[in-house]
Structure formats: C-alpha cells, structure tokens
C-alpha cells in the first residue's frame, strides 16, 4: 500500500500536533504519524499546570492542552495514523511504515517534519537493573496514564524539573517520596517546584548520589551517599533508605534516528541533550524540505516544542506555496517573538545561546556545500 501527502509529520507530541495544525489549517494534505496507540506524546501524563502567558495556556494542565491540540487537529483536517512505526526514511522522503505490527506500507511526502521527541537517560550503579528501578517518566506514565501505583516508597535520582515534578506527582498518587538525591551542590529545577515537595517534608539531598540498590529480585533498599567536589562518593557518608521504587530523572536525549537515516548533518550540543540535527531558524535541517521540531531538535520544554512545530509548519507551507512569503514572514515573526520570550531567564538564556549556535553551524554546513545563498 502506498500513500501520498504534502506534509508528513512524524511524532504526535506537542511539536508534531502543532506542526500538523499549522499546515492543515492552511490547506495542505497532512499526515501525522505516531507509533503509540494514542496521540499526545508525553502531554497526557503531565497533570501539572504549565508556566507561560495566557496565549500559551499558562495555568492549564498538560493533559488539557493535549485535548485542545487534538481538537484543533480535527478542525484542521489532519489525518492521524496511530500504532504506526516509521522504520526508515529515504532522502526522497519515502517513509517505510509498519501498521499495528503487521501491515507494511510506504508514505511519500513533499515535506517531512520530524517531531520524534526524546528518551530518558539511564544511570548505572550496582542494582540498576532490579525490577523497581525505572525512568521517572516511565513511573509517571504508569501512574498518570495507566493508573497503577509504581511503588509505595520512592527514591528520586536527579533534581531537575522532571525529578521534582514527578516526585510531586508520586505524592499526589499516594506514594511516599523518601528523598530526592542530586549529585550537584544545587537543585537543578525551578525553586518553586522544589518548594512544593520540600514543604511536604521531602528531603532534597544535594551533593548526594545513589551508590547501590539492593533487594531479592526487586528493589528493597537504596544506599545513598554524599559526593565530594569532584562528584566522587565520600566513604562513611552512606545511608540506607528503605524503598521499593527508584526513579531515574537524569536527563533526556533527542530521538533522531530518522534524521541520521535521511542524511541530516548533526552537531554535539550537550546542554541540549547531545547530538542534534543542525537546523536553521525556520527549523529546516541540512536536508532541504526536511524540518525538525521539539525535543528531537534539542531538549527544551513542551511550550517551546509547540512553537517550533508551528515554525516548521510555516516553512513547509511557504515552500509548497500554500502561503505567500509575506504571510510566512509575518507568522514566523510572531512565533520567533514567542520563542524569544520562552527562552529568557536563568533557565532559558542558555537554551537561546545553544540554539543560535545550531543555526550558525547549519549555515556553515550549507555554505560549504554551496547550497546556501
């Protein structure tokens, strides 16, 4: 079976859905494809209220934003293909797809927008493979989507926003959070998120790490200890905490296999999660007609992912002549203004700088290839 589209969006998370809405509402034939049985990516497990301004759904909970986006997708006439894995992507934009683990098909598109998101990093220590050690996001999926309590007493590794938010949500679901350990001498995430769990008595142990997790075929206890300035454990500072769940919240890595397959050039940007496909301000990669948005283009937040998805959509629309250059410029200007605002402050400035580096690396590659004017 073969299918054709103007725009193929891979990934139905916040970035992919917004790319679908942007292109669909301007008349393009759009397919948004996702391997999961439900659209929304990780939005539906976000039960906290989002930061931002009114036009960014500030104060609205993540899963409600998900509902809103799905409704808008419908209105924009976006075709949603779920339970469909894209296993390959050629430079001619032919995507190899397996539907429901059985039927094979191809989709040919004029433009491709990659919005494949990210995966959680892992951390290795003795006992890290015991059942009961899991990603913080995995625990969040289990409790907020599947409504099963991942554990009764938890230890959280990492105090970034994911670690802090998931700790709070574990408490909401009825799990005791024994401690959050953070190897750095400071809390990684927003102070307001840290305050939410600290005032409930959750110990946030800075300059601490997990040394070992023990148990008979499942997690029974964790040993944590203090780390020195070089992040090495200090002998004699160990203590044992009785837990049945250890959550790892130690960062995310962009999922960009399809960009590698399609021949995109990459750069290494550790502050944005590692290897990132180079792209320009309009989210176009080094492969003309192929765009990238959201965490796959560098780890940020759902709010920036949504804006990037729109930006990629505008680029695709313009090059397909669904909108005029003037219309594209005016849409881009508004979106870039929003992104500028979202990338301000102590948690935003560095992301802004890294993104600028990606744009300039993209330009260098394009100039070298002679394809940039």
């Amino acid at each position, binding site marked *: 079976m073969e299918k054709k589209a103007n725009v193929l969006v891979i990934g139905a998370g916040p970035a992919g859905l917004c790319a679908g809405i942007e292109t669909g509402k301007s008349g393009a034939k759009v397919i948004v494809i996702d391997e999961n049985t439900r659209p929304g990516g990780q939005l539906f497990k976000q039960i906290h209220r989002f930061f931002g301004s009114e036009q960014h759904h*500030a*104060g609205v909970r993540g899963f409600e934003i998900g509902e809103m986006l799905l409704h808008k997708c419908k209105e924009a006439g976006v075709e949603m293909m779920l339970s469909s894995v894209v296993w390959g992507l050629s430079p001619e934009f032919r995507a190899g797809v397996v539907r429901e683990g059985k039927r094979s098909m191809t989709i040919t598109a004029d433009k491709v927008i990659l919005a494949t998101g990210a995966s959680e990093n892992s951390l290795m220590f003795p006992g890290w493979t015991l059942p009961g050690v899991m990603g913080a996001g995995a625990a969040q999926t289990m409790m907020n989507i599947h409504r099963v309590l991942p554990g009764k007493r938890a230890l959280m590794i990492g105090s970034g926003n994911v670690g802090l938010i998931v700790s709070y949500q574990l*408490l909401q679901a009825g799990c005791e959070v024994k*401690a959050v350990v953070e190897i750095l001498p400071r809390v990684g995430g927003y102070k*307001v998120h840290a*305050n939410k769990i600290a*005032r*409930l008595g959750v110990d946030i142990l800075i300059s601490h790490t997990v040394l070992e997790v023990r148990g008979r075929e499942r997690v029974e206890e964790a040993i944590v200890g203090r780390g020195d300035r070089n992040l090495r454990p200090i002998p004699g500072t160990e203590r044992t905490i009785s837990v049945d769940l250890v959550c790892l919240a130690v960062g995310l890595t962009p999922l960009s296999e399809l960009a590698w397959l399609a021949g995109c050039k990459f750069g290494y940007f550790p502050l944005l999660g590692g290897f990132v496909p180079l792209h320009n301000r309009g989210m176009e990669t080094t492969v003309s007609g192929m765009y990238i948005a959201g965490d796959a283009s560098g780890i940020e937040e759902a709010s920036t992912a949504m804006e990037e998805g729109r930006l990629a959509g505008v680029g695709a629309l313009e090059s397909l002549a669904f909108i005029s250059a003037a219309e594209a410029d005016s849409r881009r200007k508004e979106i870039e203004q929003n992104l500028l605002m979202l990338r301000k402050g102590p948690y935003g400035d560095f992301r802004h700088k890294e993104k600028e580096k990606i744009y300039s690396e993209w330009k260098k590659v394009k100039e070298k290839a002679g394809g940039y004017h």
Partner: protein
Amino acid sequence: MSGKRLKKRPVVIIDCPEEIPCNPCETVCSQGAIIIGQPITNLPVTDEAKCTGCGRCIPVCPGLAISLLHYDYSPSEASLTVPYEFLPLPKKGQEVFVVDEKGRYLGKGNIIRVIPPEKNNRTSLVTFSFSKKLYKKVKYFVLKRENLIDETRKYEPGKK
C-alpha cells in the same frame, strides 16, 4: 510588607524567586495588585494597597507559590490560605500540623475553610489557623507527621 496592611485583611504572598517566563497571576488579578509587565520573566511585584485578598491568584500559579496571609484572623491566631492538590481533603475544624518551607514541624493548626477542587480546576484552597507567633515561618500544613528517612543504617560494602 507593612505591618498595618497585614493586620487589616488577608494579603497575598508570592514566593517566586526565579525569572520564569510566566504571568497568569498578573492576568487574573482584577485589581492590578500583581505587576509583572514585559518581559514576562520579570519577578512579580505586589501592591499591597490594591490587594483585596480575594485569593484568585492562588490556584492559577503553576508553581503553587502563592498564599494568602491574614495576621489578624483572631486575637491570638493568624491564618494562611494555600493551594492543595492531595487526597484526602482536610475537613473544617480538623487539627493539622503546620510546617515551614522545609516541611519542619512548627506546631498545631486548625482548618478554617476548604474550597473544593471543582471550583478551581482541581486545585483546592485550604485556609488554616495557627499561633500568631509563627506567622513568619508557616508555609504549609500536613495531615500526618512523618519522619521521611526512617532508617539510618550503616552501609557495609559488599554485604548482601
């Protein structure tokens, strides 16, 4: 904060120390008592003279960082209104434990009012009273007093 204003009626307290791009508290305030302006990473500034103590800003704050302090709740007690997103909900008259910013026990308190979660998209507002002497330290309340790290055993490397 001026002591005089604090005594008259409840006044908003915003514990928002970092420049996060966020401003629903400013948007929701009909009195113009919370100012952020542009860029929206500015820290919120409260105008106590304008704040009527309505509490509408409490549940819209994504950081759950806003509370309402009433110093003169009674001759001997102050009260605090906080956002609450846990089960079970406390009941009016229930005795609770008041805690500081680190969850450290300060003393006992009583629930005065509970605005149920349906009113504010699943965020309840709970008002509780406590001794006036504690008004600067009290940040929250808990229903159960628990020691969170309950076991401190010596770690023996290699022992299984």
